[in-house]
């Protein structure tokens, strides 16, 4: 519990950087796309482009910030050496992992909530299945919190972490159907998108708001749960073996 509190307080101490900035960035995306595309594009019948876009933007901000929280905290701790305070404490791998993952989820949810609240001022956005939206928000934060943990442990320097973020997390989140419906893609890209777990996060989350989706939300929830579980197992294995953190 202390480690979770510490990790949460760490990002709350720099709230402008960790929460407000990503909210404003998402708002800018929304303003631009709304202005340019709302009158011309209707990705799903009866739904404006803005209403289609907002759940995707929320999820994208949520997962990117969940990833950033655990990965940046770990790499900074490794870099400055203060990770030893955690390693010297009688904390089990489970406790360490859960604290980092939950703090990442907390930041992701805060950013997501911020984007949603601001978007409500600009877009008429329904919330048809709030429970589904919550399930996918938690799965997204959990999965990316775990991936951030993995990247933070694996990366020996900030450059490697940036590579992980820019060549894996960013493309996967941009190509997850945030800006378009799967139905609008050519068959090959549609099949490739089906291999991207981020797509299921966005699609399921969008179902929570709009009540329509490209894929059955149960299937999406299943894929995301398996991905989160797998990432968690890898993180726990890293901690159990002391990979890159216990000599």
């Amino acid at each position, binding site marked *: 519990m202390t480690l979770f*509190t510490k990790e949460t307080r760490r990002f709350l101490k720099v709230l402008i950087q960790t929460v407000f900035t990503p909210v404003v960035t998402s708002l800018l995306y929304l303003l631009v796309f709304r202005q340019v595309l709302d009158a011309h594009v209707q990705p799903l019948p009866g739904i404006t482009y803005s209403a289609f876009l907002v759940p995707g933007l929320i999820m994208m901000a949520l997962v990117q910030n969940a990833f950033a929280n655990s990965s940046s905290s770990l790499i900074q701790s490794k870099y400055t050496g203060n990770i030893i305070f955690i390693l010297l404490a009688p904390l*089990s791998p489970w406790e360490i992992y859960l604290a980092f993952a939950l703090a990442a989820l907390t930041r992701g949810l805060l950013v997501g909530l911020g984007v949603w609240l601001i978007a409500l001022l600009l877009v008429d956005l329904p919330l048809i299945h709030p429970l589904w939206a919550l399930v996918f928000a938690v799965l997204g934060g959990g999965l990316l919190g775990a991936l951030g943990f993995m990247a933070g442990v694996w990366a020996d320097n900030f450059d490697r972490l940036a590579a992980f973020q820019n060549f894996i997390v960013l493309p996967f989140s941009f190509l997850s159907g945030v800006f378009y419906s799967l139905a609008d893609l050519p068959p090959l890209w549609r099949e490739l998108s089906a291999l991207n777990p981020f797509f299921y996060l966005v699609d399921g989350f969008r179902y929570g708001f709009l009540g329509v989706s490209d894929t059955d939300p149960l299937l999406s929830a299943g894929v995301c749960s398996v991905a989160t579980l797998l990432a968690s197992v890898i993180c726990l294995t890293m901690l159990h073996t002391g990979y890159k953190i216990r000599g």
Partner: protein
Amino acid sequence: MPSSLFSPPALAVTGLHKHYGQLHALRGIDLTIAPGEVFGLLGRNGAGKSTLINIIAGLVRASAGQAAVLGHDVVSDYREARRLLGVVPQELVHDPFFTVRELLNIQSGYFGLDKTNRPWMKELLKILNLTDKADTNMQRLSGGMKRRVLIAQALVHRPPVIILDEPTAGVDVELRQILWHFVRRLHGDGHTIVLTTHYLHEAEALCGRIAILHEGAVIALDSKDALLARNPHRLLVVTLAQPDLPLPETLRQRQVSREGATLTLRVHRVEEQVGAVLDALRQAGAEVVDLQIREPGLEDIFLELTGSREK
């Protein structure tokens, strides 16, 4: 924490090996430290001191062998072993996001301690002269202050066994005195203390027993007095009027050091007489301006042991 025949050793290390790729950093270390000891761990850079400490602290995994803190294995029973151990790391590491008080609260929480531990934290701040810095962010503290915070963090859970990894490296004289006083106080309170240091006079002043590590192996392990008595020589330190005077081979063989006009020679305390050595100096044409006879210190023993191994 009185030691008894039935209580487990404060630290027990058995057959410890550590490989880093081709490097054999620890070569079968066996070490037992009794409760209440102040134990010195000496060695040059790269001798294996930090690796040994890091294995005991759980920061590094051993390639073979075991380590236990008060009978609790550092791997299989790591929770209890870590509760009983406090480690002051060598590097000045800190978390830049928090104040001193916040860091102590966090560290205390890691050990499952609640608000009832706050009086002890307050006392620690007072003992280490940190009270007026309690609400200062770590980034704003000097190196010496950060060192004190590291000590407070290591002691926040009241561990009976404390490892200080070069605690006085790079600190000023005042802080060194405070730390020495603090180590003596902890020892007086019954704590077991393991001290690694480059300052051999520090080990001489504080430690009861000493182990010397060299290239990953223990090459000497004894009480401080027994180690000091190992050297059969006394040291004759003379100041010569002629700093560049060449010495004959017989005198060069007993030379320990020569810096400017000051020449240090070893003299066997039983088999030789100082007068005979002074006669030999005079015969070589030396004019002795000043002289003193010094008992060899730990530094001399250390250099002799590690130096002879290298030869």
